[in-house]
Every structure is written in C-alpha cells, then in structure tokens.
C-alpha cells in the first residue's frame, strides 16, 4: 500500500487583496481569505490520482503554521486525503523556509512514506526552497517542476515527468523521493458533498514545536514589506483612423515615454 505525504501551505487566496499592517513587517490577516497554495493543490491532486491508479494507499497531508491552517487541512481531507498532521503554533506565522523545512523534516522522520509531494513553491513568498531543504534534511532525491507522477505498482520506482523550456523531461527514480509539483494537466478536484461529510471522521494529529524538540523563535525575520507601486494611469492612443492612432502612439512614445 503506497504511503504518500503531501506538504501543504495555507496562503492568502489568489483573489484576496493583501495589505501590509502599519508596522510594515507583517500582512494584515484580519478578514483575509486563505486557501491551499495552488501548486500544493496540484500536488495533492496528483497524489490522489496516483493513489487511485494503484487502487489503494494512504495520503497524509502535513502543514506547519498558525491555527487557521486547520481549515486548509480540512479541505485536503474533503478532497480525499486520508489523514493529516498539523504542527500548530501562532509563532509559525512567519517562520521562513529554513525553519519550515526543519520542522517538516522532524515530523516526517517519524512517518512511514514512499513519496513526498508538494508544490514547487508557495505563492505567498515564492521562495521555492522548502522541497530542496527538506531533501537535504532527509537525504532524499528531489525532482522539481514536476507535471506528472506514475508510481510503479511494486512501489520500488517511479516515473516523473518534468516541465522544461519548450518540452518535457522524463525521470526514472527509486523511491522514496521528493517531488516538487508545478502546474499539471489535472485541475484540482472539488470535494464532493459526501467527502466533505466524511472528512469529519478523518484524524488530524496536532503537534507542538516542543513535542518536535524544535526551538521556537523563527531564525529569519522580515525587515519591511511594501505594496507594489500603484499603476500609473493608462493613456490610450486614440484617433479616427488606424493611421491616426499609430501617429498618436508614436507621439506618446516619444514625448511622454521618452523612448527615442
């Protein structure tokens, strides 16, 4: 029976408007909508498909973060994960990638697994570091930008397809392995109503930093956060005919944008 671990990060939703707090170092989380980071969601979908292809198996979703992340784990359970592990601490609000990878490694060292799947990067800070740090901690191979995972029925090897510029690359690897998933062919599924109800009975194991023997203070600190500069007004190159429009555009490029 295949054992798949899926590491999830719970981040501000892609449609949410993110604003810094007055301290200039943290984001305002009150009223902010959070979701599973999209690449992690793709990883979970690939894990569900891999488990279903093998006709049996267990998927455990893992997250490290503040208390609100429990909602992300519930969504993962409703989508079809079998169990969840939650390292819960308000201090994990801005832990940093080095620290997060260390905590994940401490959790995973106590778990049985054949493959670890996660998004290639989280869409909040876009560091794209955790899969590789984790591979280092666990002394495992790691493949990134993965778009497809096919696990051999004997659970000894796996075929991994990765996205490269203008094509794809197929890797054959032994198990266990870490795969960092990019955009795949499969849109993450919506949970069915029966599965939402069933998720209530699935276990979420809550762990503390003390239980994992980890020191609490995060080793990295954000010095300042600033919103992107406001977009300048758009100027339309107007005109009655296409020729007039182009003339106007050239004039704007020369006189306003000072390109030439």
């Amino acid at each position, binding site marked *: 029976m295949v054992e798949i671990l899926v590491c999830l990060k719970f981040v501000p939703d892609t449609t949410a408007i993110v604003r810094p707090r007055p301290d200039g170092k943290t984001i305002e989380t009150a009223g902010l909508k959070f979701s599973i980071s999209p690449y992690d969601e793709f990883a979970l979908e690939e894990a569900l498909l891999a488990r279903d292809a093998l006709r049996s198996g267990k998927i455990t979703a893992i997250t490290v973060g503040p208390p609100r992340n*429990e*909602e992300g784990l*519930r*969504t993962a359970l*409703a989508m079809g994960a079998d169990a969840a592990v939650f390292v819960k601490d308000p201090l994990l609000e801005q832990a940093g990638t080095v620290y997060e990878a260390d905590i994940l490694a401490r959790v995973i060292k106590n778990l049985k697994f054949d493959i670890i799947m996660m998004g290639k990067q989280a869409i909040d800070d876009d560091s794209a570091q955790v899969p590789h740090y984790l591979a280092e901690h666990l002394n495992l191979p790691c493949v990134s930008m993965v778009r497809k995972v096919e696990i051999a029925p004997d659970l000894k090897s796996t075929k991994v397809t990765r996205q490269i510029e203008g094509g794809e690359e197929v890797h054959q690897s032994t198990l266990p392995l870490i795969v960092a998933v990019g955009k795949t062919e499969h849109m993450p599924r*919506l*949970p*069915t*109503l*029966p599965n*939402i*109800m069933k*998720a*209530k009975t699935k276990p979420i194991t809550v762990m503390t930093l003390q239980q994992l023997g980890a020191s609490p203070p995060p080793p990295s600190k954000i010095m300042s956060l600033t919103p992107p500069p406001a977009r300048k007004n758009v100027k339309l190159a107007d005109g009655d005919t296409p020729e007039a429009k182009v003339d106007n555009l050239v004039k704007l490029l020369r006189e306003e944008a000072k390109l030439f």
Partner: protein
Amino acid sequence: MVDFNLTPEQQELVKMAEKFAKMEIAPVAPKYDHEGFPQEILQKAFELGLMNTSIPSEFGGLGLGLLDQALIVEEFAAACPGIACVVFMNELALAPIIKFGTQEQKEKYLPHFTQSPKLATFALTEHGAGSDIGSIATTARKEGDHYVLNGTKWFISNAPQASLHVVIATHDPSLKQKGLSAFVVENNFDGISIGKGIEKLGMRATPTSEIILNNVKVPVSNLLGAEMDGSNIALASVNRTKVIVAAFGLGVAKSALQNALAYSMQREQFGKPIGEFQAIQFKLADMAKDLEAARMLTWLAAWRYDQGLPSTKEGSMAKALATDVAMKSAVEAVQVYGGYGYIKEFPVEKMMRDAKVLQILEGTNEIHRLVIAKELIKSIKE
C-alpha cells in the same frame, strides 16, 4: 448566547458550492437563460453530490439539514437562480415523500434520485388554483386498488424532464382544502402528458410546463399519508422549502450587491468613480444591510427548523424579507449600472427578471404576511 459560527463542514460546503457556482454555473448562465435546460450542469452537480442532499442516508442521500442546504443554495442562486432551480427543485418535490412516505414508498422511489440525476416535480398549482389550494380541480376517484386522476397542473417547474411527480388532487371539490390528497405519480403511467413549455420573464433555464392527467391510474400504494391529508402534506413541505426560497433571495441579493459595488468603482462620471457619490453609496449601503438582515433571519428560520422548533412564522418572515430584498437590490443594481444595466451584455437585467418570481412562488409574499399575522394573533389568543 448566540453563535454565528458555521461548523467546519458547513464552511467547506460553502467553499465548494461557491467554487462550483463560479466555475461551472456563472460562465454559462447567459447561455442557458437563452437556451433553457442546463443538462451538463445537472450531471456535474449530481456527481459532486449536490442534488438530493436532503434524502436520508439510508436511501443513499446525505440527510443534510435545512441550514446546510440554505448555504449551498445561496451560492448557486448567486450565480444563476434559474440553473439553481433546476438543481434544487427535487428538494421541494421529494420533501413530501421524505416526510410522509411509508418505508416502502421511500425504498421504491428515493434511490432513483441518488443513483442518477433524475428530476421530480411538485404538481400542486393549476390554472385556477395557486395560493388558494382549496380550489384545486384535479380529481382523484377511487376504483378498486387504484385512484383515477384527471385534471391539468400548470406552472410545473422541471416537468418536461421529470420522471416522477407528486400530485395534489381532490376527492371532492366541495370539501375545498379538506378534500385533498397527495399522490406519487410516475411519469410513465398511462394518461400523463406534458403540455407545451411556458415562456417566462426570468428563471429561463428552468423548464416550466403544464402536466395533463387524463384517466391516470395510480395504485393505492402510491397515496402519500392518508386520504384527505393533502393540504397538511403540502403545507408541511412548504414549511421547509420556503426557507430554501429565502436562500435563493439571498443569492440574488448578494450577487446584485457584488456587481453593483464593483461596477460603481469602475464607472466614472464627472471625473470620478460613481461609487464616490453619496447617491450611489446609499444604495450600496442599503443593499448590504438588507442582505445581512435577510441572511440572519433565514439562518434563524433554518436553524429553528433543524432543531425541531416551531418555524412557521420565522420561515415566512425569511421568505418574504429575503425575496423582497432580492427584488429591491436587483432593481437598484440596474439603477447603479444605468443604461448598461438595461442591456443583456451586463448581468444585472437578468437578475432583475429572475428575482421577481421569488416573491411569487412557494406562496406569494402576501400569503406569507398573512401567515405571519395569523401566528402573531394566535400568540395572544391562546
């Protein structure tokens, strides 16, 4: 102490329903407003378990509560009330079987709806009978081991696509509402025909037709409850479904507010977004406060129903308030859009057309006000 927290499962239901509504329903809402019946949506909603949610688990359903359903319906109706009506009509149609059916009737009929996306109708309304169910003219005559039904039902949602009908008919028209019974009628019984489709102002994705019953033989085993129980059965079903209609109203009101708010920040006149003018801000503020008030009342009615507490008054309050708010907000959204609100390229004219029927169906809002008043008067007379 009042608690407005939804359970974790309810939060997931809302998230899922919202995603489904945004991804699958909203993009095709204009298409089915034009073309009618959204078969593809029905199939997808069924696969996610979104149809027939109130069927008890022993018959393959989920046995969800009324509040759970109201949460899902609000999200669907925000995307398209017409498509939502197709998907959720079974909740109304099957309510009498779930509440009053015998074990045999439930075992025979309910699994049909949990195994494939089949549709049922609630066939009460006639040309001459709506709010006044005592004037129902479709007759049921007992002959040996069956009843013979004759008459014409009118304004029946989903009728052209349905495989089962719950029909209210009278044993004796002179007995008015006391002479009614409810029957489970399979669409393939001899003598049933579906009349022509009815062209409507709104809710155009929902097919609506007449059902003609011509000497339809219905086995006595298909009588719901006892003879002459029809009025009770109809009213008890409406007690549940009026809260669902309130949730339809919430969906329309929410969508009207969201669209008007976004548009008012984009549309510029006199050198600034129209949303910066108080005339528009007052409209937006009213839409927001009315929606919130209607939602709290709808949740209260649903919660009371789920707790087994009396909810006749609260359900009628929720239905009348939420659907009045829906209509008012839809009209105001059109006003915020100005001329663009009146054309089909923008979503709000459809909202206005769809909203109107919510004040009419499942008991007009005038009837619901009478119900509220009757409950009030009863409370001081007893």
